Each structure stands twice: as structure tokens, then as C-alpha cells.
């Protein structure tokens, strides 16, 4: 059974939030860090509170980098038992993740590539006014602890229109999420069976039936998860220019956008609506994820083999899919670029988290192989058109009878401007860290 009293709510539920703030912290003084943590544990939402009931806007989420765990007093021998990729951190893994050129950690903002980054505090709020109220409350609280420095903050707001969640490009989000066994949620048709908790939380059996050994000390890691944070600017002007360059009419432009994603921007899957958008299908959770590729679209005539959703979730066309699933959380930042307006150079994009039990097996695999392997599905010279590392030298093939359409020199529609690996501990672990128990001789 999942220990819902201990697991943080973050990966278990999705609050109905229109606004959020991420705070990136450095513990200049460990005692201040522990005291700060001690005072906010009661605000950290637990899994047990997340099932049913309205979302409580006081809930926050707290997670730590490897350096942050050290700053709070975890001993070196224990720190060495954490997985290598977490110890190294996302910035160190840049070459593996494709964070090169314009995406290189040297160009990241907000101090995220710095070893001084110790923690993130995440606040989701029902609206901007509520967020501002919570931020003021936290700022007042935090003034007691000058040894806890905010390296940077990021404010997020839902992008209008608000009838469903979408990014700045207009793509509907949150279409396909794994469910966790034991949570009592029936996955929507096409989403597969609920997954074993060990795929997302440490200390539980995974899809292989194995329970991997916990990093030390166990009280800190049991019921915890790893988070990969990505902040990605979306170049809306370049994206719209691209659609105009490759589509004569608005309908053709919509189809080009759909081919890059694998779904119409409404969210309707191309496998089920290959020629014309179907907003009703898009809005129907009983239908909008109910498709495969192997039987329904083996050659990619509907969903190109290299499109975003076919890479990020190859469904029945990859092996061991259940060992590669991830839980996504996040939102959009920056003002929307009005339709028809020229690119204004203002930073806007997605700031998202990937939750999993193994960063190297789940998150890094998706980024290294599915997003960035040019030879994925035998394509030869393509990367994910949305989140792959693009520098104008890769292509995009759109299968079509009788002859495929090939777009050469795909531009970069996104740039990674920050990222980090965090460990998201359970509530008992937070208390242990706050008590300084980790720092006492054992």
C-alpha cells in the first residue's frame, strides 16, 4: 500500500491551479535552512489529503538537490549512495541531455546551473491574487532566516484562453498521464493499466516486481521521488513563421502544427482524426487517448514517426514502455504572444517537472534517446521537433502517399534556459532533515 500520509501530494494529484511560483533557494546557513524547513512542513500537502476534497491553496512542495541534502547535514557516506546522475546534477549531464549550443547550462538563467542551488519550493495557487497573497506570507516568514537566500523565482500563469491547459504554441497539454496502482483511479481508454508505485516512489515494487535498494539514510529516501526540472523558452514567433512558410491556408498550417506534435492543437489525436481537427474528440477523455501505432498507424501516415508524441510515448511500438513512463507537472510562464503580433523577444515558455524513480532510466532515456536520437525509428537525421535539440541541421519527415514530404533544416522552436535534478522527500524525511537529525553524529 502507498503510504499516502507520508508521500508529498505533488505527483499524486494535479491541483486546479491557474498560477504558480517556483522559488530556487540556497542554504547559506544550514541552521537557517533547517529552521525554515521546520516552519513550512505543515504547509506541504500529503498524498492522503489529495484524494478527494478541494485543493488547498496553502499546500507547497519542497525538494532538494544533492548539494542541498549535503547543506542540510546528510553525511558524505550517505550522499554517495544516491544515483550518479542525481549526484552530478542536470547541468553536469548537459552533453547527455543535448543541452548544447543555445541550450548550454552556461546560458541558463536564475542560478540553476550553480552548485549553490539547494532547494526548490513550489506553490500552486487557484489564481494570481491567491499566489500573491501566499508569496507575501512566505516572504514575511522567510525574513526570519537570512541564511536562506532566494537565488531566483519564476512566476507562472495559465495561458489564455482558459477553457483547457495549453502551451504558448497553442497545443493542449495533459492528454496522457500514467496512473499509479493503489490510487483507485481507472486510466482512460488507451492509457494502459495503472503502473506499480515503484516506478515513481522509492521503496515500492516496480514493474519488474523488484524493490530497488534505497539510497541512505532510508528515512530520507523512502516514499521519495526524483524530479527533473526543465525551463524551456518557446519561440512563438519562429513557430508561427514556420507554420506560415509550410502551409498556404490556415487549414494547412494547422495540419503542419498537428504533424509536428502528433495531435491537433485542440488535442485531437491524428491517429483518430487524420485529416480534420475534431475538438469534440479532443475534449473527450474516453476517446482522446484511445489509439496505438503498431496496428492503427504503422507507417506514420497519420502521426509522423518523428513527431513529439510518437517519440515521448511510442506506446505499442517500443519495448518495456512501463519502465519508461514519467509523471509531468508544470505550467507556462511569460505573457502570451497575441495572434498576428511579431515576435517581441519576451521570455515565455514551459517550466515543468518530470517525476520518476530513476532519472537515468526514465527521464534521461526520454531526453537522450526518444527526443534526441537522430536515428530513432530509423529516421536518420531527425530529432523531436518540439523539445529536441535543434540547430537548423535536422529534418522532419511527414509520411504521405505516394511520396513523403521532407522538411529540411527544422528551426529550434524552444531553448532550454534552466534545469536541475531534485529529490522530493516524504513528510517524515522533511521532519528528519529539519530536526537536524542527519547532522548529528550517529
Amino acid at each position, binding site marked *: 500500500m502507498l503510504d499516502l500520509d507520508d508521500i508529498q501530494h505533488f505527483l499524486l494529484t494535479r491541483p486546479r491551479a491557474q498560477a504558480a511560483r517556483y522559488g530556487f533557494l540556497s542554504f547559506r546557513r544550514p541552521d537557517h535552512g533547517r529552521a525554515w524547513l521546520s516552519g513550512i512542513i505543515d504547509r506541504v500537502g500529503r498524498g492522503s489529503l489529495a484524494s478527494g476534497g478541494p485543493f488547498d491553496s496553502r499546500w507547497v512542495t519542497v525538494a532538494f538537490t544533492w548539494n542541498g541534502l549535503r547543506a542540510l547535514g546528510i553525511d558524505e557516506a550517505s550522499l554517495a549512495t544516491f544515483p*550518479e546522475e542525481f549526484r552530478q546534477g542536470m547541468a553536469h549531464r548537459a*552533453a547527455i541531455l543535448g543541452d548544447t549550443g543555445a541550450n548550454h547550462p552556461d546560458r541558463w538563467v536564475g542560478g540553476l546551473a550553480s552548485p549553490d542551488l539547494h532547494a526548490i519550493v513550489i506553490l500552486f495557487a487557484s489564481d494570481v491574487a491567491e499566489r500573491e497573497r501566499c508569496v507575501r506570507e512566505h516572504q514575511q516568514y522567510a525574513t526570519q532566516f537570512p541564511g536562506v537566500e532566494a537565488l531566483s523565482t519564476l512566476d507562472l500563469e495559465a495561458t489564455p484562453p482558459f477553457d483547457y491547459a495549453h502551451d504558448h504554441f497553442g497545443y493542449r497539454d495533459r492528454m496522457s498521464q500514467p496512473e499509479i496502482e493503489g490510487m483507485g483511479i481507472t486510466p482512460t481508454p488507451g492509457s494502459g493499466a495503472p503502473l506499480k508505485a515503484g516506478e515513481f516512489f522509492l521503496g515500492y515494487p516496480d514493474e519488474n516486481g*523488484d524493490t*530497488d535498494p534505497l539510497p541512505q539514510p532510508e528515512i530520507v529516501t523512502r516514499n521519495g521521488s526524483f524530479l527533473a526540472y526543465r525551463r524551456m523558452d518557446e519561440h512563438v514567433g519562429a513557430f508561427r513563421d514556420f507554420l506560415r512558410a509550410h502551409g498556404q491556408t490556415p487549414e494547412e498550417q494547422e495540419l503542419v502544427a498537428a504533424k509536428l506534435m502528433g495531435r491537433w492543437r485542440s488535442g485531437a489525436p491524428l491517429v483518430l482524426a487524420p485529416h480534420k481537427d475534431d475538438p469534440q474528440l479532443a475534449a473527450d477523455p474516453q476517446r482522446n487517448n484511445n489509439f496505438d501505432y503498431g496496428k492503427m498507424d504503422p507507417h506514420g501516415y497519420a502521426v509522423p514517426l518523428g513527431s513529439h508524441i510518437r517519440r515521448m510515448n511510442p506506446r505499442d511500438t517500443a519495448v*518495456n514502455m512501463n*519502465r519508461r513512463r514519467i509523471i509531468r507537472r508544470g505550467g507556462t510562464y511569460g505573457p502570451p504572444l497575441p495572434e498576428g503580433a511579431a515576435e517581441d523577444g519576451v521570455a515565455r515558455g514551459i517550466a515543468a517537472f518530470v517525476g520518476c524513480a530513476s532519472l537515468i*532510466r526514465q527521464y534521461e*532515456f526520454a531526453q537522450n534517446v526518444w527526443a534526441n536520437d537522430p536515428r530513432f525509428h530509423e529516421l*536518420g*537525421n531527425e530529432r523531436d521537433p518540439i523539445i529536441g535539440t535543434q540547430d537548423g541541421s535536422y529534418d522532419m519527415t511527414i509520411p504521405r502517399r505516394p511520396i513523403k514530404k521532407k522538411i529540411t533544416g527544422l528551426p529550434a522552436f524552444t531553448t532550454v534556459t534552466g534545469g536541475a535534478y531534485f529529490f522530493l522527500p516524504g513528510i517524515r524525511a522533511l521532519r528528519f532533515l529539519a530536526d537536524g537529525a542527519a547532522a548529528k553524529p550517529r
Partner: protein
Amino acid sequence: MSNASAPNDWTKPAAMAIPKEGYFTVEQGRYGPTYPRTPACYGFTIIAKIKPGTEADIRAYGKRIEDTIAASPNALAPLQLHYLRWVLFDIGQETYFMYQGIFDTDFDKYTEDAIQLFKATGVDTVFEKLEGFPTDWKTNAPAFIKFVREHQCPSFLEYGEYPFVSAAEIKKALALKQAFSSMLDHMQ
């Protein structure tokens, strides 16, 4: 960097001499530097000493793989193999096992899938008879991968008569040939 300029003219046989490290430039994969694709595709040659007295068991395992593939021909499909060669040979009093595979995917990228398959088909039972194989491999994928990488002996020369052609492309070409033959038959 783009792969667009990678040589892929299958009509022109090609050879590639490879530096001692096994790669030309360090390109980091998730588990360490990745090995290059050569005219003979991707591949590895793992050589490890076997535990004394296990030779017969390892040899017997060859028959098991034969039976597995006969019963389910696609059992090893995820590895995207061209060929496997398993060899036992002696140096002095000791016996060594060589596992040579030629395949179409960068091993670093699909390492976990390979391990999963090793478990499913029982190949791990052969690995367990090798000196130094981690006893906790079932829950310690990084240790399994470290063992494989430490025992990998990179080629210093690889040659392809039809270079850089994947098994999938070969099968497509043969299927096309078959389809044409069938079409010609139907036109008689």
C-alpha cells in the same frame, strides 16, 4: 551535430580503423562514452573469464537459446541484431567467454532494454557464470552495465561489404524483392 553527412552508400564497401579507446571523440552517453557506428554497424565484443567448472553449463545454454528462438522467433527483436557469436576459448588453464553482437542501435541508448531481455531469456544465467559479475545485478542495473562496459574490447578495425545498412533495411529490400517476384508471377 547533424548525421546528414554520415556515409551511407551501400554499394561502396568501407573499412574503419578505430582508436584504442574505441571511439574517435568522446560523446557522452548515459552510462559513459558511446561507441561509434561503423561500416559494420554498432556492436560489442565482451570477453570475460568464466568461473571454473561452468563450461558445460554455458555450452548447454546455446541449445536453450536455439529452442527459445525456434519457439518465439522475435524474442531478441528489441536488440535489433544482425548477428550474435558466442565463443568459449582457453588461455592457459583458464576458459574465457566471448559474446560478440552486431546490431543497429547504440548499445548505450538501449542498455536497460537489453538487460530486461537478458533476464527474460535467461542470458543472465550465463553472465552469472562469469568472474566478477555483480551478484546484485537484478536490482543494480548500473553494476550490470559497468560489468559489460569493463569487459568490452573495442574493435580496432571494422569492415562492411554493404556499409551502414541496418537489418531493417535489408529485410525491407528482401521483402520488396519478394513482392516484385510475386507481382511478376501474377502478370504471367
